[in-house]
């Protein structure tokens, strides 16, 4: 393959194009100027200029989660790289495939405290799946291809490639992606057939089965969600999903119990507590899901399928762990189930469903409406109902609004729900929505936001406006860091220390000053009109929805409590004080 000699910067562009990248989120600076120059001279890659590097990583996350492709970030050395750290950590926690290219001072200056030097590989080592410092121009192309391979293979995650400026200028050889056969990193994707057979056996024998699916199903790709849904239907087992797993089973499926965990439904949590066999599919027994560990599903035999062996037996000891890609493992499970003509114990499972239906009747997500005040749940519910006929992607910030969105917005498909689950990063939703909108230009993309969170990356409005991305900010404005206030109410005697959102901007004027459209609803009878106008406006919109500032998010399993100690509403709160052990937990 004879080609014209290229310098490192050109190699970077070529490698990205050959990896199928069409958009890069970035911000320029001294240490990446050669790459920006190479970007300028080509038209295969689109560069989206964010307004802060943190925004670039979240935008790449939104792009990646909504497409299944690797999201790409380009930032400069020093502050460019350090600003990316939160996004990288977020992507690591939620297993989002990201390749982040960082500029670095020239190799001969490394270690000299040069201008805008920082130890990028040192700083990002614990918050990436892997990282590289390219010191040899001959290895640049291969390193870049390897970075993509590592980011997307196995359990996906963020990979940093730190590229000193002299390498960007140096003439380098180029080789295409080919078939990267990594020397050491070859994650196990096929499950152990014997164990899969055992799993099938355990589920067929269950009297009170529960399937608990997580974000790994989404990460594995749409096929995994299809197979998951198929398996749920075949077995008829009651099924719950984690925050990250929403969409893996259509919310309209009658077997779906709603979300599990701290703000999950009554029926999902009690079913987890009382099941006799639990099939965990690509979830990770996070503390937000398990509640108090020693009281977690005490009578259940547990099966865990995950591509990452470290997730198995980490928090909860399981009876059967299967390492492999969920799509592969589910396919094999379905095959065995069919071949051996398995059925569940119909009578026992019918009785189990009867019990669950009793819990369902409590209608744990119900809320009261009010004549004067918009209820936050009501705002989200109306948004859901009024957009049923559209292709809609939802992102969120972090707080009560995020939990209400997870509870009241119902997802029928995977990859349509983007939220910061593991790290809980306020400021995620707006840049993530920008990334989603770029990947899906025709779709409706809404960031369900809180008024406090949105201030964390508010500068990204300019990005949306610059690229004419009609992202919608739907701000559930309760004038509080509501989730903080709720915990202060529950644990700290209602002393609302620093959790009031003072000196808020006028979001309507703010929108207008950026060249976006601002809307506001303050009364319930204004809500539908604002939502209608918002979704019909072909422009970036900020809809400021003034909601009841006192509303709390229920159900809630206080930290340190067990699933069956779930609080259903404010009445429960007074009756069941939080334990001292629970207080210290986050």
């Amino acid at each position, binding site marked *: 393959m004879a080609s014209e000699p290229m310098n490192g910067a050109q190699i970077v562009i070529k490698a990205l194009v050959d990896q199928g990248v069409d958009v890069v989120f970035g911000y320029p600076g001294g240490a990446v100027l050669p790459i920006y120059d190479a970007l300028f001279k080509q038209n295969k890659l689109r560069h989206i200029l964010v307004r802060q590097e943190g925004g670039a990583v979240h935008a790449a996350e939104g792009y990646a989660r909504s497409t299944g492709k690797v999201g790409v970030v380009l930032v400069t050395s020093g502050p460019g790289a350090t600003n990316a750290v939160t996004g990288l950590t977020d992507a690591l926690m939620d297993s989002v495939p990201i390749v982040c290219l960082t500029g670095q001072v020239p190799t001969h200056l490394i270690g000299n405290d040069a201008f805008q030097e920082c130890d990028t*590989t*040192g700083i990002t*080592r*614990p918050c990436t*799946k*892997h*990282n590289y*410092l390219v010191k040899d121009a001959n290895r640049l192309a291969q390193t870049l291809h390897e970075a993509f391979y*590592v980011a997307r293979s*196995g*359990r996906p995650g963020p990979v940093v490639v730190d590229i000193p400026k002299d390498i960007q200028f140096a003439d380098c050889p180029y080789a295409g992606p080919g078939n990267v056969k*990594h*020397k*050491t*990193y070859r*994650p196990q994707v096929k499950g152990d057939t014997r164990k899969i057979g055992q799993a099938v056996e355990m589920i067929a024998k269950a009297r009170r089965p529960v399937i608990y699916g997580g974000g790994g199903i989404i990460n594995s790709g749409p096929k995994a969600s299809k197979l998951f849904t198929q398996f749920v239907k075949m077995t008829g087992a009651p099924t719950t999903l984690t925050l990250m797993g929403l969409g893996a089973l259509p919310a309209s499926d009658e077997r779906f119990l709603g979300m599990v965990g701290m703000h999950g439904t009554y029926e999902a949590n009690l079913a987890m507590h009382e099941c006799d066999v639990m099939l965990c599919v690509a979830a990770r027994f996070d503390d937000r899901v398990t509640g108090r560990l020693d009281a977690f599903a005490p009578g259940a035999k547990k099966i865990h399928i995950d591509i*990452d*062996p*470290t997730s*198995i*037996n*980490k928090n909860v*000891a399981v009876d059967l762990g299967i390492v492999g890609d969920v799509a592969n493992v589910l396919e094999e499970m379905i095959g065995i189930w069919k071949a051996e003509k398995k059925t569940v114990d119909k009578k026992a499972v019918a009785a189990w469903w009867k019990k669950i239906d009793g819990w369902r009747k409590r209608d744990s997500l119900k809320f009261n409406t009010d004549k004067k005040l918009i209820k936050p749940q009501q705002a989200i519910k109306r948004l859901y109902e009024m957009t049923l006929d559209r292709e809609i992607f939802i992102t969120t910030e972090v707080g009560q609004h995020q939990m209400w969105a997870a509870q009241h917005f119902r997802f029928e498909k995977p990859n349509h729900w983007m939220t910061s689950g593991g790290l809980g990063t306020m400021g995620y939703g707006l840049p993530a929505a920008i990334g989603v909108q770029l990947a899906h230009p025709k779709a409706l993309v809404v960031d369900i936001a809180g008024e406090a969170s949105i201030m964390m990356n508010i500068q990204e409005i300019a990005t949306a406006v610059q690229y004419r991305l009609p992202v919608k900010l739907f701000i559930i404005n309760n004038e509080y860091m509501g989730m903080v206030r709720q915990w202060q109410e529950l644990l700290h005697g209602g002393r609302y220390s620093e959790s009031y959102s003072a000196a808020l901007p006028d979001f309507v004027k703010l929108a207008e000053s950026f060249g976006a459209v601002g809307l506001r609803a303050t009364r319930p009878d204004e809500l539908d009109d604002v939502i209608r106008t918002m979704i019909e406006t072909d422009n970036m919109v900020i809809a400021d929805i003034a909601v009841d500032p006192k509303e709390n998010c229920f159900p809630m399993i206080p930290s340190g409590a067990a699933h069956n100690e779930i609080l259903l509403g404010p009445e429960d709160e007074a009756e069941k004080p939080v334990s001292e052990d629970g207080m210290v937990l986050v």
Partner: protein
Amino acid sequence: MSDIERHTIAVLVDNEPGVLARVIGLFSGRGYNIESLTVSAVSKDEALSRITIVTTGTPMIIEQIKAQLDRLVPIHSVHDLTDEGAHIEREVALVKVVANGPERRESLRIADIFGATVADTTIESFVFSLTGKPEKLDAFIELMRALGKTEIARSGIVGIARGAKAL
């Protein structure tokens, strides 16, 4: 709470910058114990290094440690020597003893009993070199401490499985 076990784990890694930092960062970041850690290149051609880690934890933690190590990208293989059958562990100690008169003579006698060699000598000091199991080194060092001013350097533990099977 299950019992705390002590395991010796051998890890073959790519000999590349940062790999040791990854391993150490993993242990400190996740709160695992390191009783001993040694590292050295073992093959120039393949650019391989071998890290030997002695750690303690419940069986569940030990499993976690191995799985966590195994998923680091530049790691070739992880072997739990303690689990995989009989193995040998060795450590080197260099022990400086500053003493005169009978103490000095006694130090030489004890060194002889332990099979330590004299690596350096002056009129008022010896440096002994001793190779063996860590417990043997502990015993030797304790005796030497009683005889005079001491300075101790220990290598940390290296381990290898007995028998013909090679990694």
